[in-house]
Protein backbone atom coordinates (compact mmCIF):
# COMPACT_ATOMS: atom_id res chain seq x y z
CA UNK A 1 0.00 0.00 0.00
CA UNK A 2 1.31 3.42 -0.90
CA UNK A 3 2.05 6.42 1.23
CA UNK A 4 -0.78 7.63 3.37
CA UNK A 5 -0.61 10.59 5.68
CA UNK A 6 -2.13 8.71 8.56
CA UNK A 7 -2.19 11.72 10.87
CA UNK A 8 -4.32 13.76 8.47
CA UNK A 9 -6.70 10.84 7.94
CA UNK A 10 -7.03 10.10 11.66
CA UNK A 11 -7.30 13.81 12.51
CA UNK A 12 -10.23 14.24 10.11
CA UNK A 13 -11.82 11.02 11.37
CA UNK A 14 -11.70 12.23 14.98
CA UNK A 15 -13.00 15.65 13.94
CA UNK A 16 -15.94 13.93 12.20
CA UNK A 17 -16.55 11.85 15.33
CA UNK A 18 -16.56 15.05 17.38
CA UNK A 19 -19.12 16.64 15.03
CA UNK A 20 -21.29 13.49 15.24
CA UNK A 21 -21.07 13.64 19.04
CA UNK A 22 -22.07 17.32 19.05
CA UNK A 23 -24.98 16.63 16.69
CA UNK A 24 -26.24 13.66 18.69
CA UNK A 25 -25.87 15.47 22.05
CA UNK A 26 -27.93 18.40 20.77
CA UNK A 27 -30.95 16.09 20.99
CA UNK A 28 -30.50 15.43 24.72
CA UNK A 29 -32.48 17.39 27.37
CA UNK A 30 -30.62 20.71 27.68
CA UNK A 31 -30.92 21.27 31.45
CA UNK A 32 -30.67 24.75 32.95
CA UNK A 33 -27.65 26.99 33.56
CA UNK A 34 -27.68 25.89 37.23
CA UNK A 35 -28.33 22.20 36.53
CA UNK A 36 -26.46 21.00 33.41
CA UNK A 37 -28.36 18.31 31.49
CA UNK A 38 -27.18 14.96 30.03
CA UNK A 39 -25.94 16.71 26.87
CA UNK A 40 -23.58 19.10 28.69
CA UNK A 41 -20.54 16.84 29.03
CA UNK A 42 -20.92 15.11 25.63
CA UNK A 43 -21.00 18.56 24.00
CA UNK A 44 -17.73 19.47 25.73
CA UNK A 45 -16.09 16.20 24.69
CA UNK A 46 -17.44 16.47 21.13
CA UNK A 47 -16.02 19.98 20.78
CA UNK A 48 -12.70 18.80 22.22
CA UNK A 49 -12.49 15.85 19.80
CA UNK A 50 -13.34 18.12 16.89
CA UNK A 51 -10.73 20.74 17.79
CA UNK A 52 -7.98 18.20 18.54
CA UNK A 53 -8.74 16.21 15.38
CA UNK A 54 -8.56 19.32 13.22
CA UNK A 55 -5.39 20.34 15.08
CA UNK A 56 -3.75 16.99 14.31
CA UNK A 57 -4.75 17.11 10.65
CA UNK A 58 -3.68 20.74 10.21
CA UNK A 59 -0.42 20.31 12.09
CA UNK A 60 0.46 17.23 10.09
CA UNK A 61 -0.31 18.93 6.76
CA UNK A 62 1.70 22.00 7.74
CA UNK A 63 4.71 19.93 8.76
CA UNK A 64 4.36 17.81 5.63
CA UNK A 65 4.73 14.75 7.84
CA UNK A 66 3.58 11.80 5.78
CA UNK A 67 4.06 8.55 7.64
CA UNK A 68 3.84 5.28 5.81
CA UNK A 69 1.00 3.50 7.56
CA UNK A 70 1.46 0.04 6.04
CA UNK A 71 5.05 -0.94 5.37
CA UNK A 72 4.02 -4.36 4.04
CA UNK A 73 2.08 -5.35 0.89
CA UNK A 74 -1.44 -6.77 1.30
CA UNK A 75 -0.26 -10.29 0.41
CA UNK A 76 2.46 -10.27 3.07
CA UNK A 77 2.25 -13.34 5.36
CA UNK A 78 1.96 -11.11 8.44
CA UNK A 79 -1.11 -9.31 7.02
CA UNK A 80 -2.70 -12.59 5.89
CA UNK A 81 -2.06 -14.04 9.34
CA UNK A 82 -3.66 -11.07 11.11
CA UNK A 83 -6.74 -11.01 8.86
CA UNK A 84 -7.22 -14.78 9.25
CA UNK A 85 -6.85 -14.61 13.03
CA UNK A 86 -9.45 -11.83 13.29
CA UNK A 87 -11.81 -13.74 10.98
CA UNK A 88 -11.40 -16.91 13.07
CA UNK A 89 -12.10 -15.03 16.29
CA UNK A 90 -15.17 -13.35 14.76
CA UNK A 91 -16.45 -16.74 13.57
CA UNK A 92 -15.86 -18.17 17.05
CA UNK A 93 -17.96 -15.40 18.62
CA UNK A 94 -20.69 -15.83 15.97
CA UNK A 95 -21.18 -19.52 16.79
CA UNK A 96 -20.85 -18.91 20.56
CA UNK A 97 -24.51 -19.42 21.45
CA UNK A 98 -25.09 -22.27 18.95
CA UNK A 99 -22.11 -24.54 19.58
CA UNK A 100 -20.88 -25.61 23.02
CA UNK A 101 -17.46 -24.63 24.36
CA UNK A 102 -16.00 -28.12 24.07
CA UNK A 103 -16.98 -28.32 20.40
CA UNK A 104 -16.15 -24.84 19.20
CA UNK A 105 -12.85 -24.22 21.01
CA UNK A 106 -10.57 -27.06 19.77
CA UNK A 107 -11.23 -26.27 16.07
CA UNK A 108 -10.53 -22.57 16.72
CA UNK A 109 -7.28 -23.28 18.53
CA UNK A 110 -6.20 -25.88 15.98
CA UNK A 111 -6.77 -23.46 13.08
CA UNK A 112 -5.27 -20.56 15.04
CA UNK A 113 -2.06 -22.45 15.71
CA UNK A 114 -1.91 -23.68 12.11
CA UNK A 115 -2.24 -20.09 10.86
CA UNK A 116 0.46 -19.01 13.29
CA UNK A 117 2.82 -21.56 11.78
CA UNK A 118 2.78 -24.32 14.40
CA UNK A 119 3.14 -27.89 13.06
CA UNK A 120 -0.28 -29.60 12.70
CA UNK A 121 0.43 -32.38 15.21
CA UNK A 122 1.55 -29.89 17.83
CA UNK A 123 -1.45 -27.67 16.94
CA UNK A 124 -3.78 -30.59 17.53
CA UNK A 125 -2.21 -31.46 20.88
CA UNK A 126 -2.24 -27.81 21.98
CA UNK A 127 -5.87 -27.34 20.89
CA UNK A 128 -7.07 -30.30 22.94
CA UNK A 129 -4.84 -29.61 25.94
CA UNK A 130 -5.60 -25.88 26.15
CA UNK A 131 -9.34 -26.52 25.80
CA UNK A 132 -9.17 -29.04 28.62
CA UNK A 133 -7.27 -26.69 30.92
CA UNK A 134 -9.57 -23.75 30.14
CA UNK A 135 -12.69 -25.85 30.70
CA UNK A 136 -11.23 -27.01 34.00
CA UNK A 137 -10.39 -23.47 35.13
CA UNK A 138 -13.52 -21.64 33.96
CA UNK A 139 -16.14 -24.33 34.41
CA UNK A 140 -14.55 -26.34 37.20
CA UNK A 141 -12.96 -23.60 39.31
CA UNK A 142 -15.18 -20.58 38.55
CA UNK A 143 -18.41 -22.57 37.84
CA UNK A 144 -18.81 -20.41 34.75
CA UNK A 145 -20.90 -21.70 31.85
CA UNK A 146 -18.98 -20.96 28.68
Amino acid at each position, binding site marked *: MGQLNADVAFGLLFAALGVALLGHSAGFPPGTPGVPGPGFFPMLVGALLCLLGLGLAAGSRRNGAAIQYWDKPWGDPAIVRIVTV*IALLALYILVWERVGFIWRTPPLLFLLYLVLGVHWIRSLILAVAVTGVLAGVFQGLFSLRL
Partner: protein
Amino acid sequence: MAELVTGVAPLLDPTTWLYVALGVGLGILFGALPGFTATMGLAILTPLTFWVQPDQAFAMLFGLLCAAIFSGGIPAILINTPGTPASIATTWDGYPLAQQGQAGLALGINALGAFCGQMLSIAVLALAAFPLAAFALRFGPSEYFALAIFGISMMVSISSRSLLKGLLMGALGLAVSMVGLDPIVGYPRFTFGTPAFLDGISFIPVMVGLFGVAEVLVQMYATTPHSIKGPVRIERVLPSRAELRGLAGHAVLGSAIGTGVGIIPGAGGDIGSIIAWGQSRRLSRLRDRFGKGSLAGLTASCTAANAAIGGAMVTMLTLGIPGDSASAVLIGALLIHGLQPGPLLFRDHPDMVAHIVVLLAMASLVTMLFGLIGARPLARILQIRDQILWGLILIVCVLGSYALNQSVTDVWVMLLAGLAGFVLRKAEFPMGPLVLALILGPMAESNLRRALVLSQGDLSILVTRPLTVIFLLLTALSLLVPVVSSWRGRAKAV
Protein backbone atom coordinates in the same frame (compact mmCIF):
# COMPACT_ATOMS: atom_id res chain seq x y z
CA MET B 1 -2.19 1.01 62.92
CA ALA B 2 -5.30 -1.00 63.85
CA GLU B 3 -6.00 -1.43 60.14
CA LEU B 4 -2.51 -2.78 59.60
CA VAL B 5 -3.07 -5.34 62.33
CA THR B 6 -6.30 -6.59 60.68
CA GLY B 7 -4.51 -6.53 57.34
CA VAL B 8 -2.18 -9.27 58.51
CA ALA B 9 -5.03 -11.81 58.21
CA PRO B 10 -4.11 -12.92 54.65
CA LEU B 11 -0.73 -14.04 55.97
CA LEU B 12 -2.46 -16.82 57.88
CA ASP B 13 -4.54 -18.08 54.97
CA PRO B 14 -2.78 -20.75 52.86
CA THR B 15 -5.23 -20.16 49.97
CA THR B 16 -4.06 -16.57 49.69
CA TRP B 17 -0.45 -17.75 49.46
CA LEU B 18 -1.51 -20.10 46.65
CA TYR B 19 -3.16 -17.25 44.74
CA VAL B 20 -0.08 -15.10 45.25
CA ALA B 21 2.07 -17.92 43.89
CA LEU B 22 -0.24 -18.31 40.89
CA GLY B 23 -0.02 -14.57 40.17
CA VAL B 24 3.76 -14.66 40.58
CA GLY B 25 4.01 -17.58 38.15
CA LEU B 26 2.00 -15.71 35.54
CA GLY B 27 3.87 -12.49 36.21
CA ILE B 28 7.22 -14.16 35.64
CA LEU B 29 5.96 -15.37 32.26
CA PHE B 30 4.68 -11.94 31.19
CA GLY B 31 7.72 -10.08 32.48
CA ALA B 32 10.37 -12.45 31.18
CA LEU B 33 9.11 -12.62 27.61
CA PRO B 34 10.21 -9.52 25.71
CA GLY B 35 7.16 -7.83 24.19
CA PHE B 36 4.77 -9.18 26.82
CA THR B 37 4.31 -6.66 29.61
CA ALA B 38 2.97 -6.42 33.14
CA THR B 39 0.13 -4.26 31.80
CA MET B 40 -0.88 -6.94 29.30
CA GLY B 41 -0.82 -9.62 32.00
CA LEU B 42 -2.87 -7.50 34.39
CA ALA B 43 -5.41 -6.65 31.68
CA ILE B 44 -5.92 -10.32 30.81
CA LEU B 45 -6.01 -11.51 34.41
CA THR B 46 -8.34 -8.78 35.76
CA PRO B 47 -11.66 -10.12 34.39
CA LEU B 48 -10.77 -13.64 35.56
CA THR B 49 -10.33 -12.42 39.12
CA PHE B 50 -13.98 -11.32 39.28
CA TRP B 51 -14.88 -14.87 40.20
CA VAL B 52 -12.77 -15.05 43.34
CA GLN B 53 -12.81 -13.11 46.63
CA PRO B 54 -11.26 -9.61 46.46
CA ASP B 55 -8.39 -10.72 48.72
CA GLN B 56 -7.57 -13.60 46.41
CA ALA B 57 -8.04 -11.45 43.31
CA PHE B 58 -5.59 -8.84 44.57
CA ALA B 59 -3.23 -11.59 45.70
CA MET B 60 -3.00 -12.77 42.08
CA LEU B 61 -2.86 -9.28 40.56
CA PHE B 62 -0.18 -7.94 42.90
CA GLY B 63 1.71 -11.22 42.56
CA LEU B 64 1.65 -10.74 38.81
CA LEU B 65 2.75 -7.10 39.04
CA CYS B 66 5.66 -7.71 41.43
CA ALA B 67 6.86 -10.77 39.52
CA ALA B 68 6.56 -9.16 36.08
CA ILE B 69 8.71 -6.18 37.08
CA PHE B 70 11.26 -8.53 38.69
CA SER B 71 11.34 -10.98 35.79
CA GLY B 72 11.78 -8.21 33.23
CA GLY B 73 15.36 -8.38 34.47
CA ILE B 74 15.78 -12.03 33.39
CA PRO B 75 16.01 -11.43 29.61
CA ALA B 76 17.83 -8.15 30.36
CA ILE B 77 20.57 -10.23 32.01
CA LEU B 78 20.54 -13.29 29.76
CA ILE B 79 19.95 -11.87 26.27
CA ASN B 80 20.50 -8.12 26.70
CA THR B 81 16.81 -7.43 25.99
CA PRO B 82 14.71 -5.82 28.74
CA GLY B 83 11.54 -7.81 29.42
CA THR B 84 9.79 -4.64 30.62
CA PRO B 85 10.79 -0.95 30.22
CA ALA B 86 11.73 -0.85 33.93
CA SER B 87 14.64 -3.23 33.32
CA ILE B 88 16.41 -1.18 30.65
CA ALA B 89 19.20 -0.19 33.06
CA THR B 90 19.49 -3.83 34.21
CA THR B 91 20.97 -4.71 30.80
CA TRP B 92 23.90 -2.35 31.35
CA ASP B 93 25.56 -4.48 34.02
CA GLY B 94 23.45 -7.64 33.98
CA TYR B 95 24.33 -8.72 30.46
CA PRO B 96 28.09 -8.10 30.84
CA LEU B 97 27.96 -10.23 34.01
CA ALA B 98 26.24 -13.04 32.06
CA GLN B 99 28.89 -12.80 29.37
CA GLN B 100 31.54 -13.16 32.08
CA GLY B 101 29.94 -16.45 33.19
CA GLN B 102 28.11 -14.90 36.17
CA ALA B 103 24.54 -15.13 34.86
CA GLY B 104 23.42 -17.03 37.98
CA LEU B 105 24.83 -14.42 40.34
CA ALA B 106 23.25 -11.63 38.29
CA LEU B 107 19.87 -13.40 38.42
CA GLY B 108 20.28 -13.87 42.18
CA ILE B 109 21.06 -10.19 42.72
CA ASN B 110 18.11 -9.30 40.52
CA ALA B 111 15.83 -11.38 42.78
CA LEU B 112 17.27 -10.02 46.03
CA GLY B 113 17.30 -6.46 44.68
CA ALA B 114 13.67 -6.81 43.61
CA PHE B 115 12.72 -7.95 47.11
CA CYS B 116 14.66 -5.16 48.78
CA GLY B 117 13.25 -2.45 46.48
CA GLN B 118 9.68 -3.73 46.71
CA MET B 119 9.71 -4.17 50.49
CA LEU B 120 11.18 -0.74 51.24
CA SER B 121 8.69 0.95 48.93
CA ILE B 122 5.82 -1.05 50.48
CA ALA B 123 6.97 0.22 53.90
CA VAL B 124 6.76 3.79 52.55
CA LEU B 125 3.30 2.99 51.19
CA ALA B 126 2.18 1.70 54.60
CA LEU B 127 3.50 4.77 56.43
CA ALA B 128 2.60 7.55 53.98
CA ALA B 129 -0.67 6.44 52.43
CA PHE B 130 -3.04 6.87 55.39
CA PRO B 131 -1.96 10.45 56.29
CA LEU B 132 -2.03 11.47 52.61
CA ALA B 133 -5.50 9.98 52.16
CA ALA B 134 -6.73 11.71 55.34
CA PHE B 135 -5.69 15.03 53.80
CA ALA B 136 -7.39 14.14 50.51
CA LEU B 137 -10.70 13.58 52.33
CA ARG B 138 -11.19 17.36 52.24
CA PHE B 139 -11.86 17.13 48.50
CA GLY B 140 -15.26 18.21 47.14
CA PRO B 141 -16.78 17.64 43.66
CA SER B 142 -14.67 20.33 41.98
CA GLU B 143 -11.47 18.80 43.42
CA TYR B 144 -12.48 15.33 42.26
CA PHE B 145 -13.19 16.65 38.77
CA ALA B 146 -9.82 18.44 38.68
CA LEU B 147 -8.10 15.30 40.04
CA ALA B 148 -9.63 13.11 37.31
CA ILE B 149 -8.54 15.57 34.63
CA PHE B 150 -5.06 15.76 36.19
CA GLY B 151 -4.80 11.95 36.16
CA ILE B 152 -5.74 11.78 32.49
CA SER B 153 -3.35 14.62 31.64
CA MET B 154 -0.47 12.84 33.38
CA MET B 155 -1.15 9.71 31.38
CA VAL B 156 -1.34 11.80 28.20
CA SER B 157 1.96 13.52 28.92
CA ILE B 158 3.89 10.28 29.50
CA SER B 159 2.29 8.05 26.91
CA SER B 160 3.17 9.52 23.58
CA ARG B 161 5.68 11.63 21.74
CA SER B 162 2.71 13.54 20.32
CA LEU B 163 0.68 15.42 22.90
CA LEU B 164 -2.20 15.82 20.43
CA LYS B 165 -2.43 12.06 19.92
CA GLY B 166 -2.45 11.46 23.66
CA LEU B 167 -5.15 14.10 24.14
CA LEU B 168 -7.21 12.62 21.31
CA MET B 169 -7.06 9.21 22.96
CA GLY B 170 -8.11 10.80 26.26
CA ALA B 171 -11.06 12.51 24.56
CA LEU B 172 -11.99 9.25 22.81
CA GLY B 173 -11.95 7.45 26.17
CA LEU B 174 -14.24 10.12 27.64
CA ALA B 175 -16.57 9.73 24.64
CA VAL B 176 -16.77 5.95 25.09
CA SER B 177 -17.34 6.39 28.84
CA MET B 178 -20.52 8.37 28.09
CA VAL B 179 -22.29 5.40 26.49
CA GLY B 180 -25.16 4.22 28.71
CA LEU B 181 -27.24 5.91 31.37
CA ASP B 182 -26.14 9.42 32.29
CA PRO B 183 -24.66 9.33 35.85
CA ILE B 184 -26.83 12.11 37.31
CA VAL B 185 -30.37 11.78 35.91
CA GLY B 186 -30.19 8.33 34.28
CA TYR B 187 -30.96 9.52 30.72
CA PRO B 188 -29.85 6.93 28.08
CA ARG B 189 -27.07 8.25 25.84
CA PHE B 190 -25.45 6.78 22.69
CA THR B 191 -27.06 3.36 23.19
CA PHE B 192 -28.63 3.33 19.69
CA GLY B 193 -31.51 1.29 21.02
CA THR B 194 -29.28 -1.57 22.22
CA PRO B 195 -30.31 -2.65 25.75
CA ALA B 196 -26.85 -4.20 26.31
CA PHE B 197 -25.35 -0.69 26.20
CA LEU B 198 -27.67 0.79 28.85
CA ASP B 199 -25.13 -0.15 31.53
CA GLY B 200 -22.40 1.45 29.44
CA ILE B 201 -19.43 -0.11 27.69
CA SER B 202 -17.55 -2.07 30.31
CA PHE B 203 -13.92 -0.99 30.47
CA ILE B 204 -12.72 -4.55 31.08
CA PRO B 205 -13.33 -5.89 27.52
CA VAL B 206 -11.96 -2.63 26.10
CA MET B 207 -8.86 -2.97 28.26
CA VAL B 208 -8.40 -6.64 27.35
CA GLY B 209 -8.79 -5.81 23.66
CA LEU B 210 -6.43 -2.84 23.71
CA PHE B 211 -3.67 -4.39 25.80
CA GLY B 212 -4.14 -8.09 24.96
CA VAL B 213 -5.45 -8.66 21.43
CA ALA B 214 -3.97 -5.45 19.97
CA GLU B 215 -0.55 -6.29 21.45
CA VAL B 216 -0.61 -9.77 19.90
CA LEU B 217 -1.66 -8.33 16.52
CA VAL B 218 1.10 -5.72 16.68
CA GLN B 219 3.63 -8.45 17.44
CA MET B 220 2.31 -10.62 14.61
CA TYR B 221 2.65 -7.67 12.25
CA ALA B 222 6.05 -6.52 13.40
CA THR B 223 7.98 -9.70 14.00
CA THR B 224 8.48 -13.16 12.74
CA PRO B 225 7.98 -15.69 15.54
CA HIS B 226 11.17 -16.44 17.39
CA SER B 227 12.54 -18.04 20.49
CA ILE B 228 15.91 -18.33 22.15
CA LYS B 229 17.52 -21.64 21.35
CA GLY B 230 19.88 -23.61 23.49
CA PRO B 231 20.23 -23.91 27.26
CA VAL B 232 21.64 -21.07 29.34
CA ARG B 233 24.29 -22.12 31.88
CA ILE B 234 23.47 -20.96 35.41
CA GLU B 235 26.17 -21.25 38.06
CA ARG B 236 26.20 -19.68 41.57
CA VAL B 237 23.02 -17.74 42.32
CA LEU B 238 23.50 -16.33 45.84
CA PRO B 239 26.05 -13.58 46.48
CA SER B 240 28.54 -14.06 49.33
CA ARG B 241 28.18 -12.21 52.66
CA ALA B 242 31.02 -9.87 51.73
CA GLU B 243 29.35 -9.09 48.41
CA LEU B 244 26.03 -8.47 50.18
CA ARG B 245 27.67 -6.07 52.65
CA GLY B 246 29.22 -4.14 49.76
CA LEU B 247 25.91 -3.93 47.90
CA ALA B 248 23.65 -2.91 50.82
CA GLY B 249 24.23 0.83 50.36
CA HIS B 250 23.47 0.67 46.66
CA ALA B 251 20.29 -1.29 47.39
CA VAL B 252 19.07 1.36 49.86
CA LEU B 253 19.96 4.16 47.44
CA GLY B 254 18.16 2.41 44.55
CA SER B 255 15.12 1.73 46.73
CA ALA B 256 14.89 5.35 47.90
CA ILE B 257 15.23 6.76 44.40
CA GLY B 258 12.84 4.21 42.89
CA THR B 259 10.17 4.88 45.53
CA GLY B 260 10.49 8.65 45.16
CA VAL B 261 10.32 8.52 41.39
CA GLY B 262 7.42 6.03 41.51
CA ILE B 263 5.35 8.43 43.64
CA ILE B 264 5.54 11.06 40.88
CA PRO B 265 2.68 10.33 38.45
CA GLY B 266 4.07 9.54 35.05
CA ALA B 267 7.55 8.61 36.19
CA GLY B 268 7.98 4.87 36.68
CA GLY B 269 10.59 2.19 37.17
CA ASP B 270 12.33 2.89 33.88
CA ILE B 271 13.22 6.46 34.86
CA GLY B 272 13.88 5.47 38.49
CA SER B 273 16.33 2.71 37.59
CA ILE B 274 18.28 4.91 35.18
CA ILE B 275 18.57 7.70 37.79
CA ALA B 276 19.55 5.20 40.51
CA TRP B 277 22.19 3.60 38.29
CA GLY B 278 23.66 7.04 37.57
CA GLN B 279 23.68 8.11 41.23
CA SER B 280 25.13 4.79 42.36
CA ARG B 281 27.91 5.15 39.80
CA ARG B 282 28.59 8.72 40.96
CA LEU B 283 28.96 7.58 44.58
CA SER B 284 30.90 4.38 43.91
CA ARG B 285 34.65 4.01 44.31
CA LEU B 286 34.58 1.47 41.47
CA ARG B 287 32.72 3.64 38.98
CA ASP B 288 34.87 2.38 36.12
CA ARG B 289 33.26 -1.03 36.55
CA PHE B 290 29.78 0.39 35.87
CA GLY B 291 28.50 -0.73 32.49
CA LYS B 292 31.04 -3.56 32.36
CA GLY B 293 29.45 -5.96 34.85
CA SER B 294 29.26 -4.06 38.14
CA LEU B 295 27.29 -5.82 40.87
CA ALA B 296 26.64 -2.41 42.46
CA GLY B 297 25.22 -0.99 39.22
CA LEU B 298 22.99 -4.03 38.79
CA THR B 299 21.80 -3.76 42.40
CA ALA B 300 20.96 -0.06 42.14
CA SER B 301 19.08 -0.45 38.86
CA CYS B 302 17.00 -3.48 39.80
CA THR B 303 16.10 -2.23 43.30
CA ALA B 304 14.95 1.11 41.85
CA ALA B 305 12.93 -0.55 39.08
CA ASN B 306 11.06 -2.61 41.67
CA ALA B 307 10.78 0.14 44.30
CA ALA B 308 8.73 2.18 41.84
CA ILE B 309 5.87 -0.31 42.39
CA GLY B 310 5.26 0.81 46.00
CA GLY B 311 5.78 4.45 45.06
CA ALA B 312 3.20 4.28 42.28
CA MET B 313 0.77 2.56 44.68
CA VAL B 314 0.94 5.54 47.06
CA THR B 315 -0.41 7.91 44.38
CA MET B 316 -2.80 5.37 42.90
CA LEU B 317 -4.42 4.32 46.15
CA THR B 318 -4.57 7.70 47.90
CA LEU B 319 -5.49 9.96 44.98
CA GLY B 320 -6.73 7.52 42.34
CA ILE B 321 -4.08 8.75 39.90
CA PRO B 322 -2.16 6.03 38.08
CA GLY B 323 1.54 6.44 37.47
CA ASP B 324 1.55 4.21 34.40
CA SER B 325 -0.59 1.89 32.28
CA ALA B 326 -0.23 -0.98 34.77
CA SER B 327 -1.62 1.22 37.56
CA ALA B 328 -4.49 2.29 35.27
CA VAL B 329 -5.40 -1.36 34.78
CA LEU B 330 -5.12 -1.95 38.54
CA ILE B 331 -7.61 0.90 39.11
CA GLY B 332 -9.97 -1.01 36.83
CA ALA B 333 -9.36 -4.19 38.83
CA LEU B 334 -10.16 -2.43 42.10
CA LEU B 335 -13.33 -0.95 40.56
CA ILE B 336 -14.74 -4.31 39.48
CA HIS B 337 -14.40 -5.42 43.09
CA GLY B 338 -16.34 -2.36 44.26
CA LEU B 339 -13.32 -0.36 45.45
CA GLN B 340 -12.79 3.18 44.13
CA PRO B 341 -9.12 4.16 44.56
CA GLY B 342 -8.79 7.55 46.21
CA PRO B 343 -9.16 9.03 49.67
CA LEU B 344 -12.62 7.49 50.20
CA LEU B 345 -11.07 4.05 49.89
CA PHE B 346 -9.11 4.75 53.08
CA ARG B 347 -12.19 6.02 54.91
CA ASP B 348 -14.61 3.30 53.76
CA HIS B 349 -12.33 0.27 53.39
CA PRO B 350 -9.22 0.78 55.56
CA ASP B 351 -9.06 -2.97 56.12
CA MET B 352 -8.81 -3.56 52.36
CA VAL B 353 -6.01 -1.00 52.06
CA ALA B 354 -4.14 -2.82 54.81
CA HIS B 355 -4.78 -6.11 53.01
CA ILE B 356 -3.35 -4.64 49.82
CA VAL B 357 -0.18 -3.58 51.66
CA VAL B 358 0.21 -7.06 53.17
CA LEU B 359 -0.57 -8.76 49.84
CA LEU B 360 2.09 -6.67 48.13
CA ALA B 361 4.61 -7.77 50.77
CA MET B 362 3.57 -11.41 50.33
CA ALA B 363 3.90 -11.07 46.55
CA SER B 364 7.33 -9.58 46.96
CA LEU B 365 8.48 -12.44 49.22
CA VAL B 366 7.13 -15.16 46.90
CA THR B 367 8.68 -13.41 43.90
CA MET B 368 12.09 -13.46 45.57
CA LEU B 369 11.75 -17.15 46.48
CA PHE B 370 10.72 -18.04 42.92
CA GLY B 371 13.59 -15.91 41.63
CA LEU B 372 16.23 -17.56 43.79
CA ILE B 373 15.03 -21.16 43.78
CA GLY B 374 13.89 -21.15 40.19
CA ALA B 375 16.76 -19.27 38.55
CA ARG B 376 17.67 -22.23 36.34
CA PRO B 377 14.16 -23.11 35.09
CA LEU B 378 13.29 -19.42 34.75
CA ALA B 379 16.08 -19.05 32.22
CA ARG B 380 14.25 -21.61 30.08
CA ILE B 381 11.13 -19.42 29.80
CA LEU B 382 12.92 -17.56 27.05
CA GLN B 383 12.75 -20.73 24.94
CA ILE B 384 8.93 -20.68 24.70
CA ARG B 385 7.85 -19.97 21.13
CA ASP B 386 5.86 -16.78 20.49
CA GLN B 387 3.13 -18.53 18.49
CA ILE B 388 2.21 -20.80 21.39
CA LEU B 389 1.70 -17.79 23.64
CA TRP B 390 -0.12 -15.75 20.97
CA GLY B 391 -2.78 -18.47 20.58
CA LEU B 392 -3.10 -18.91 24.33
CA ILE B 393 -3.40 -15.17 24.99
CA LEU B 394 -6.04 -14.72 22.27
CA ILE B 395 -8.33 -17.44 23.63
CA VAL B 396 -7.86 -16.23 27.23
CA CYS B 397 -8.72 -12.67 26.08
CA VAL B 398 -11.94 -13.99 24.48
CA LEU B 399 -12.98 -16.01 27.53
CA GLY B 400 -11.83 -13.36 30.01
CA SER B 401 -13.90 -10.61 28.41
CA TYR B 402 -16.94 -12.94 28.46
CA ALA B 403 -16.38 -14.04 32.05
CA LEU B 404 -17.19 -10.75 33.78
CA ASN B 405 -20.80 -10.23 32.65
CA GLN B 406 -21.30 -13.49 30.70
CA SER B 407 -22.18 -11.34 27.73
CA VAL B 408 -21.28 -12.15 24.12
CA THR B 409 -21.65 -8.41 23.41
CA ASP B 410 -18.62 -7.86 25.67
CA VAL B 411 -16.64 -10.32 23.55
CA TRP B 412 -17.52 -8.34 20.40
CA VAL B 413 -16.53 -5.14 22.20
CA MET B 414 -13.20 -6.77 23.11
CA LEU B 415 -12.53 -7.86 19.52
CA LEU B 416 -13.44 -4.43 18.12
CA ALA B 417 -11.28 -2.75 20.78
CA GLY B 418 -8.41 -5.07 19.84
CA LEU B 419 -8.78 -4.24 16.17
CA ALA B 420 -9.12 -0.51 16.89
CA GLY B 421 -6.11 -0.71 19.22
CA PHE B 422 -4.04 -2.37 16.48
CA VAL B 423 -5.03 0.24 13.87
CA LEU B 424 -4.46 3.16 16.27
CA ARG B 425 -1.16 1.81 17.58
CA LYS B 426 0.10 1.47 14.02
CA ALA B 427 -0.46 5.23 13.76
CA GLU B 428 1.36 5.74 17.08
CA PHE B 429 -1.68 6.61 19.19
CA PRO B 430 -1.10 5.66 22.87
CA MET B 431 -3.60 3.35 24.57
CA GLY B 432 -3.03 4.41 28.20
CA PRO B 433 -4.98 7.71 28.05
CA LEU B 434 -7.91 5.97 26.34
CA VAL B 435 -8.29 3.35 29.05
CA LEU B 436 -7.76 5.81 31.89
CA ALA B 437 -10.27 8.30 30.48
CA LEU B 438 -12.74 5.47 30.06
CA ILE B 439 -12.30 4.61 33.76
CA LEU B 440 -12.18 8.18 35.10
CA GLY B 441 -14.76 9.63 32.65
CA PRO B 442 -17.84 9.02 34.83
CA MET B 443 -16.00 10.44 37.87
CA ALA B 444 -15.00 13.55 35.91
CA GLU B 445 -18.47 14.13 34.46
CA SER B 446 -20.52 13.50 37.59
CA ASN B 447 -18.26 15.66 39.77
CA LEU B 448 -18.16 18.52 37.27
CA ARG B 449 -21.93 18.55 37.08
CA ARG B 450 -22.28 18.30 40.86
CA ALA B 451 -19.83 21.17 41.29
CA LEU B 452 -21.86 23.28 38.85
CA VAL B 453 -25.09 22.44 40.67
CA LEU B 454 -23.48 23.51 43.97
CA SER B 455 -22.30 26.79 42.44
CA GLN B 456 -25.63 27.30 40.59
CA GLY B 457 -23.92 27.09 37.24
CA ASP B 458 -21.05 29.43 38.12
CA LEU B 459 -17.88 28.12 36.45
CA SER B 460 -15.73 30.25 38.74
CA ILE B 461 -15.96 27.39 41.28
CA LEU B 462 -13.13 25.83 39.28
CA VAL B 463 -10.81 28.78 39.90
CA THR B 464 -11.76 29.87 43.41
CA ARG B 465 -11.16 26.69 45.42
CA PRO B 466 -7.42 26.42 46.17
CA LEU B 467 -7.03 22.64 45.77
CA THR B 468 -9.00 22.66 42.52
CA VAL B 469 -6.78 25.44 41.22
CA ILE B 470 -3.66 23.51 42.23
CA PHE B 471 -4.80 20.38 40.37
CA LEU B 472 -5.80 22.38 37.29
CA LEU B 473 -2.44 24.19 37.34
CA LEU B 474 -0.67 20.82 37.64
CA THR B 475 -2.77 19.60 34.69
CA ALA B 476 -1.67 22.59 32.61
CA LEU B 477 1.93 22.06 33.71
CA SER B 478 1.90 18.35 32.85
CA LEU B 479 0.66 19.19 29.35
CA LEU B 480 2.93 22.18 28.80
CA VAL B 481 6.21 20.59 29.95
CA PRO B 482 6.41 18.10 27.02
CA VAL B 483 5.54 20.89 24.55
CA VAL B 484 8.20 23.23 25.95
CA SER B 485 10.80 20.41 26.04
CA SER B 486 9.99 19.58 22.43
CA TRP B 487 10.37 23.22 21.35
CA ARG B 488 13.65 23.53 23.21
CA GLY B 489 14.87 20.30 21.63
CA ARG B 490 14.00 21.59 18.17
CA ALA B 491 15.60 24.96 18.87
CA LYS B 492 18.83 23.24 19.95
CA ALA B 493 18.78 21.05 16.83
CA VAL B 494 18.49 24.16 14.63
